[in-house]
């Protein structure tokens, strides 16, 4: 008989024109389930007015990012056992630094537009996706395989970033990481977008983004590498042959 836990889901609620508050839902859950399953059951059986974003349920779409007990998580791949224990309360809040549409659903508009502005690659050759230990069997012609990028545009890094908390103008970890993935060698004109007050030089190396990224992007490292690329390109523009960016 599968083990059952009784937990309380304390869910943030906000409707236009009403004061935000928390609702508690006592739930019987299977600890091996995912947090999103429990949230969906709240909607299905307890409260149809619960608004939340979800689509793929297996970390490819990036819709279900929320803060679970204050920590940014993709709720579709977060196992209940890993974030709470039997009889405890699980606090579910929307992501920070995004306008709340209602309850747990946030408006990703500005964030997606910034990703579009830097020309984030939605698909890329398999061999270009930075993987710790690429399979030894990769041959050059494997570059013809195309795959969806690692970044799910889930917004967890934007929610965790202390600088993104100060202004909506800040480009943010994911767009900067995407700009690094595109690279200044491939599109030097990106420099004008990222080399600005609200771009590359606002990052304060807190590495909160890398800590919460559920999808192997490691935005912290990419931002730092982008700084090297940017300084390299600017110095070559100043001293070396104009327009030949450093790797």
């Amino acid at each position, binding site marked *: 008989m599968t083990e059952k836990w009784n937990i309380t889901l304390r869910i943030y609620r906000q409707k236009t024109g009403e004061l935000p508050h928390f609702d508690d839902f006592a739930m019987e859950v299977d600890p091996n389930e995912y947090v999103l399953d429990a949230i969906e059951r709240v909607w299905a059986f307890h409260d149809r007015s619960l608004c939340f974003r979800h689509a793929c349920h297996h970390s490819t779409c990036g819709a279900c990012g929320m803060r679970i007990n204050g920590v940014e998580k993709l709720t579709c791949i977060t196992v209940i056992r890993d974030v709470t224990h039997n009889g405890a309360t699980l606090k579910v809040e929307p992501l920070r*630094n995004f306008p*709340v549409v209602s309850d747990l659903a946030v408006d990703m508009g500005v964030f997606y537009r910034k990703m579009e502005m830097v020309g984030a690659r939605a698909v890329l050759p398999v061999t270009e996706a930075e993987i710790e230990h690429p399979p030894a069997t990769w041959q050059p012609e494997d570059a013809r395989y195309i795959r969806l990028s690692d970044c799910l545009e889930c917004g967890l890094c934007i929610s965790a970033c*202390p600088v993104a908390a100060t202004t909506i103008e800040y480009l943010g970890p994911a767009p900067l990481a995407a700009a690094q993935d595109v690279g200044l060698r491939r599109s030097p004109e990106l420099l004008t977008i990222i080399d600005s007050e609200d771009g590359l030089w606002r990052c304060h*190396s807190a590495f909160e983004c890398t800590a919460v990224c559920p999808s192997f992007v490691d935005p912290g490292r990419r931002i*730092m590498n982008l700084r*090297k690329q940017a300084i390299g390109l600017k110095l070559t523009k100043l001293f070396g042959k104009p327009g030949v960016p450093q790797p």
Partner: protein
Amino acid sequence: MNNQPSSKKFLAWFNPLGRQPGSWAFILSRITALGLTFYLFLHLVVLGRLAQGPQAYQEFLALAESPIVKLGELAVIAAVIYHGLNGIRIILTSFGIGVAHQQRLFYASVALALAGTVFFGIRLFGG
């Protein structure tokens, strides 16, 4: 709970709860930066006494011997060591060096800052 980013919540910068070491590094750096900048201008103004001749400077020296000022100076020393070392951490990581060990670099900065504080504390107060 307004979820929007806003510059009003700058006190939130200094809230270390539920954050990664990287954020603590950022918070400590910012606090020490503000402290050191304040001290910098205080230091410049105070040294102006030198220009007013020996009498004014001797008065300042007497003041400088008092324990509170010494404690202040110890705090400055701690802030300088930490801020400096964490600055090195940020510069290194900004050029892709040691990014994987950024947390250890931060802990090392704090440890060295504490060690320095103890060392100079003994020098200042041990006599």
